[in-house]
């Protein structure tokens, strides 16, 4: 872990974002169940060394801005048994997000 100041960020809190749907061929922190899903940026968590490079003994640069993204459970699971107001949050690196608009 190496938290750094965020110098440039593509997304702002409140913005709707889409998690990119693609396979991961190596180490990756975007769970399969969130790929292709749409959520809202809840907060910006800072910039961190990129685990997809750190995992291969590289310095993890450039650093990646990390976002807390909030998803409606009903968006993630079509048969979600609980109330429509339930949410799930996960921390997603910028390279896995795209603007939903």
């Amino acid at each position, binding site marked *: *872990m190496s938290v750094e100041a965020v110098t440039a960020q593509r997304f702002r809190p409140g913005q709707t974002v889409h998690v990119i749907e693609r396979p991961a061929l190596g180490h990756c*922190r975007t*769970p399969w169940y969130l790929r292709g899903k749409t959520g809202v940026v809840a907060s910006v*968590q800072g910039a961190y060394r990129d685990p997809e490079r750190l995992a291969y003994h590289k310095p993890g640069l450039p650093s990646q801005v990390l976002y807390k993204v909030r998803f409606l459970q009903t968006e*993630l699971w079509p048969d979600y048994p609980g109330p429509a107001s*339930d949410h799930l949050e996960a*921390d997603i690196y910028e390279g896995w997000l795209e603007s939903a608009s």
Partner: protein
Amino acid sequence: MTHDDHDHDHDHDHDHDHHHGGDGHTHPPQRDHDAGPMSAYEVLEETIRSLLIDKGVLSADEIAAQIDLMDSRTPALGAKVVAKAWSDPAFKAKLMADTRGALLDMGIDIGTLAEFRTIENTPDVHNVVVCTLCSCYPKLLLGVPPAWYKSLAYRSRVVVDPRAVLAEFGVAVPEGVEVRVHDSTADLRYLVLPMRPPGTEGWSPDKLASLVTRDAMIGTAIPDPGLRAAAE
């Protein structure tokens, strides 16, 4: 070849005052010298440790000190943090804004491997934490996670059916209260700040801390003064 005799750090194999989640009693420690044959992994650990010590990468003292450090991080420490947040609004504000700094103010250093965040239960939101990809957990505060937290069964299911999982743990979340699952996928570790139970006005921080179980700080339990009263 010299082997630093493994009896060297056997003083770390004593019982500690474990402070577990739901049930509050202790469990037998798993000895490395029980009746069965040594497993290949156990011998592999000894092998790796002796090679690293011989090569000067690690020392036996460093390993012993790290074990002592981890043994000092227990849910009881987390409970103290929660009780302080319940009792001291300025501390709570700092804990929410800067968990690392607030813990450091209490003399708790969370190291360099992860950042911490505190998430607060409210009358409207009940939080529960998981790591679906691995077993990320605020270890430098709460100690090692319970086996169930690391299990495929918990990791897979709490994200898709949290209310049923919570019900199995004895937590019934009313329909009108949002359940918010936190999948700690990256560099952040999450500590749940439970709600202070009603009827605890005027309680000392120590008495409050006695209500706060490990599971309450994961989100799979609710502090219950009734259980404490029943035990008294």
